[in-house]
């Protein structure tokens, strides 16, 4: 029987018992001398892919953490009065605060910058359903932006109408040039 032979080889060389490291080496030699299963080549290749996959996912996690740094939020919020229909010729808003618009509607967010401390740098950005930036003001200190209370969402370049889907309006606090926190946010839907 194979196991018995293996045991005999492990326990004695020229009648002497094998102990310690030598025993481990003998076992290793036994493994190496055995028939090589080609499935293990596949297994090892897959392990290498898995290692690369882990690196990619770690890089992704690092990217996420870089743009979404953990840490205490500044505890500041901005007051967004609402999102209204907008007249581009008069630069004024119309009607009540709305959550949905049609593709041909012009609309704008109204921000009250006065509640923010002037020690921070902020920007306000409109993102369309495809994550394109379609309007905004800043970056700057809140006092520098105080004249820009009405921030319209523009129609993406080359298009006649807004793209349908979710539009995000975000007032972001910047650290250096990097947005690190959303101080206020409104989501509106542009219907098909």
């Amino acid at each position, binding site marked *: 029987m194979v196991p018995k032979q293996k045991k005999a080889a492990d326990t004695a060389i020229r009648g002497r018992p094998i102990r310690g490291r030598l025993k481990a080496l003998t076992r290793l030699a036994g493994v190496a001398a055995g028939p090589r299963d080609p*499935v293990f080549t596949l297994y090892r*290749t*897959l392990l290498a892919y898995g290692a690369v996959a882990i690196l990619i*996912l770690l890089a992704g996690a690092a990217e996420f953490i870089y743009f*979404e740094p953990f840490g205490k939020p500044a505890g500041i919020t901005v007051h967004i009065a609402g999102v209204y229909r907008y007249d581009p010729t008069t630069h004024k808003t119309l009607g009540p605060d709305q959550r949905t618009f049609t593709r041909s509607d012009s609309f704008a967010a109204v921000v009250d910058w006065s509640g923010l401390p002037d020690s921070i740098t902020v920007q306000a950005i409109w993102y369309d359903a495809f994550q394109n930036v379609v309007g905004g003001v800043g970056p700057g200190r809140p006092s520098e932006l105080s004249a820009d209370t009405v921030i319209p969402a523009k129609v993406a370049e080359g298009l006649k109408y807004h793209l349908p889907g979710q539009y995000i309006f975000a007032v972001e606090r910047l650290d250096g040039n990097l947005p690190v926190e959303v101080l206020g946010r409104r989501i509106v839907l542009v219907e098909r």
Partner: protein
Amino acid sequence: MPGLATLIAANPRPRQRPTRYVVAILVAAVLVVVMIANSVLDFAYFDTIPGRTSLYGLLAVALVALATYVGVRAFDRDPKTRARHLVRAGVLLGLAALLWLLFSDVFLFAGSAGPGVAVACTLACVPTTAFGLFVVRRLDRNEKEPWRLVLVAAAWGAIVATSLVVWGESLWEAVAVRTLVPGPGLDASRAFSAGLLEELGKGTAVLLLFLVMRNEFDDVVDGIVYGAAVGLGFNFMESIAYMTNIYAVLSPEGAGGVAAGFQWYARQVLGLFMGHATYTALIGAGIGIARQLPSRRRKVIAIVMGFLAAIAAHFSWDAWLSFFPIESSLLGLVEVHLRTVLMTGPFTAGVVVLLVLGLRNESAALADQLRKEAALGGGTVLPQEVAILTSPWKRWRERMRAVDRGNVRAYFTLARLQAAQLDLAMERWHRERQEIDTPLEAEDELRRQILKLRGQAAF
């Protein structure tokens, strides 16, 4: 009659193996619960359009499950009733596909793109996906997988996997857009959502095939074939969704047709193999390798590694696509191709490496088993047939010679004989590696079948 001890010794089974059917039933039960909860919760809380589709599409999902059950049962029946069961399974699958397309059409796109566009997009994707499935099935040059299972895999990818991800992705998206800073962080979060949820949804289908259809799931090659088939099914449904959606978005701008056409090219030509098919093939490869590993710990590691590779491949595409911007000029056409080759190409190459290694192992093992079978002298495999059976090209040439000698029927009879001989070699290989469930009698039955086929082929 051999004694029981002899039979057990010749047909060794690892003890304490978890009953894989129980695992499969558990996975299926979890799937059903997730899917129903998914659809109801999405409908109740988000009321997204895909959520509504998912809820009404549950009937289509149930039909796919029933078709799979009937199809699997067909293998336990005698050949006379098997055909009837397979026809039933085929009809159920066809109904499910039609129903699903109807739901997608009515609830997703009919209001915007219109049913005509939805039908046109579907028709445009059918030949390319069919071509993809044809190529993928042919990859297994030694023992092609049955069409019915390849189609079931594709249907699971198209209907069940797409339904599974709706709730998860809707919930993730709802939380992410309300909490994260829009920009690269949110993009990375979305990429994690797509990679994790879509690959888990698709991978479950491959895992179920592995648990239920072990006899048709031999090794890494089969895993790649089934995985890619699931991916092609998913890609089929996703292509239709993107094409009709982009048509609806850009048709008021007068660019709907061109945009839908570009989506078709990007997903059904350029990304046919370098996309979902590659990702799910990596999962299939992991499961296929696990199929032949002796220890349970390594099996689990192999399956997890396959999933991780697929998730990472999918994630990298979604997260880092913006690093390869496409210019709106003629150069953009070159850039589109380069982007796919550079970003997904390495993963597709990884699948090809596993496939080539797997085919080499399989061919060597089959050649060895065919030689051993020929040495038994039972007439199932003749010594001079070994070289022919191990080469697809020589097998085909031999079948063509049979046509010259007889008629077209002789071609198919010889094809069945060759397939049965390779089945026997595969069965012997698994038994030698102690990784088989079927009793030894099944092998003897296969031998009887071969001798019968040999008689019909008049050799």
